[in-house]
């Protein structure tokens, strides 16, 4: 099966500064979930932003290719690139409160994209939104459409963003830490919901998280990042039984596990950090970055 999103040697750097992503390569297949894990600052969110074309202004793509459905996005003119991304990809952001406009009702925030970008009629968009809110198990969708974001709980807001992400039947969804701000019990519901929606719609999903526990529940494959370098690309089950890279193994040993309180939560050993830092600088020398 060919990948829907294929990233090849993608490099991103600070304008006039150091590298942020170091020749990242990975594939996301239709109907599959690919996890991006790493500690804060490892660049995992930047991969999603590079694909969507929403990198912070201080950063730029300095090399590599992003293939979406067989087309190299980097060769397209900006307007065509935006149109293609807008029509086929969507984002589920981390913080549902900042992602929703506090001064607008829920309904228009879901339908806007359908009306403005995809040219649907207002009535069709309205019906589609109602349908989706029911699909993400929101009680009384018609009433919620008229609510403002602050009137809803964090879990409800995240459901709405999931509904909005799936609204235009995207083929690729990038979920950027979608449950980090939520309680464990709500997180479980939301993760299950994302997995159900993704499977039902056959979407390719790129899932950014720092929680390996979450990865083991939702992902089919994953990339481990350190300082913008992919240290390991792995199938999910193999990763948890036999992580190859020492940094992956250390990250796994640091993950809190209540069933094994003293075997888990181990700090990443200094020699592992030194080794992976050396790997990064060797990579930079080799690529002349």
């Amino acid at each position, binding site marked *: 099966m060919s990948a829907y999103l294929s990233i090849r040697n993608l490099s991103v750097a600070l304008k006039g500064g150091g590298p942020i992503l170091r020749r990242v390569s990975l594939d996301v297949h239709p109907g599959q979930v690919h996890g991006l894990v790493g500690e804060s600052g490892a660049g995992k969110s930047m991969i999603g932003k590079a694909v969507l074309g929403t990198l912070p202004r201080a950063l730029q793509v300095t090399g590599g290719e992003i293939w979406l459905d067989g087309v190299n996005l980097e060769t397209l003119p900006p307007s065509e690139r935006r149109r293609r991304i807008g029509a086929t990809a969507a984002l589920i952001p981390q913080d549902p409160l900042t992602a929703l406009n506090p001064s607008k009702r829920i309904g228009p925030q879901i339908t806007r994209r359908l009306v403005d970008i995809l040219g649907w009629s207002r009535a069709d968009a309205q019906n589609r939104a109602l349908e989706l809110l029911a699909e993400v198990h929101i009680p009384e969708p018609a009433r919620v459409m008229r609510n403002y974001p602050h009137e809803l709980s964090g879990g409800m807001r995240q459901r709405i963003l999931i509904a909005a992400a799936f609204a235009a039947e995207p083929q690729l969804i990038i979920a950027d830490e979608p449950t980090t701000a939520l309680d464990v019990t709500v997180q479980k519901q939301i993760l299950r919901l994302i997995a159900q929606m993704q499977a039902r719609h056959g979407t390719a999903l790129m899932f950014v998280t720092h929680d390996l526990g979450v990865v083991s529940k939702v992902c089919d494959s994953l990339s481990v990042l350190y300082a913008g370098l992919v240290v390991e690309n792995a199938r999910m089950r193999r990763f948890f039984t036999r992580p190859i890279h020492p940094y992956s193994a*250390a990250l796994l040993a640091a993950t809190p596990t209540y069933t094994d309180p003293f075997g888990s939560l181990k700090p990443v050993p200094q020699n592992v950090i030194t080794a992976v830092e050396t790997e990064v600088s060797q990579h930079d020398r080799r690529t002349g970055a």
Partner: protein
Amino acid sequence: MMYQIRDLHLSLPDMTRKPILGHAPQMNILKGLSFDIPKGAVLGIVGGSGSGKSTLGRAMVRLLEPTAGQIMFDGKDISHASEDELRPLRKRFQMIFQDPMSSLNPRRRVGGIIAGPLRLHGVDVSGKVDEALEMVGLPRHFATRYPHELSGGQRQRVGIARAIALRPDFILADEIVSGLDVSSQAQVLNLLEELVRDLGLTLAFISHDLSVIRRLCSRVIVLRNGEIVEATETVKLFDTPQADYTKELLQAIPLPDPGQTWT
């Protein structure tokens, strides 16, 4: 006993339902909590968001005043003590906050941040800042740095250094590792374990993460909607959870193990 808490109630005004004119309606946050913390114990306080765990913590260090009930700190009733009466006691109970970026003054250097509470309480500062930095495993020259120059884990160490510099008897730690990467989480927890042991601290550790609680705490109380649904030894909580809510919390935790049955 370090703390004896009896039938603690606390209500706060619900500002989301405040009419334009007039008072906001009161919302009951804590609904009759009773528990003890023996000296030298590490108590875990868990619960989902909105369960009242942070409000409970704030009442314990009297940043909030209870509506009813009693808080005894080392045998003294502090439930309605005035600021003047509290001041000498504040030296003895300190707090570490969740987000060091917003609880450390960005315009002050680390040294000034740690010395702040010492000066407020009229304690001789000399040598104390270096000592506190050393105890949390930061080099002395960090005293001249600003919070934004530090990593998340280092910032949280500064928060801890500020709390222990006064040599308190009791520390309240409110979700202090939830904003950190797993590797820094492990380091900060190890540090806290050492400090509790070496300084003979009593600690209340608020967290939503049961894995972290299991590692650190000897006893746990589980809160839901401002009520204690379970209070027990940590080992028992994990081996034989009694309350349905505790079971639900435990089952919701995604373990890093593809074999876990989770649905």
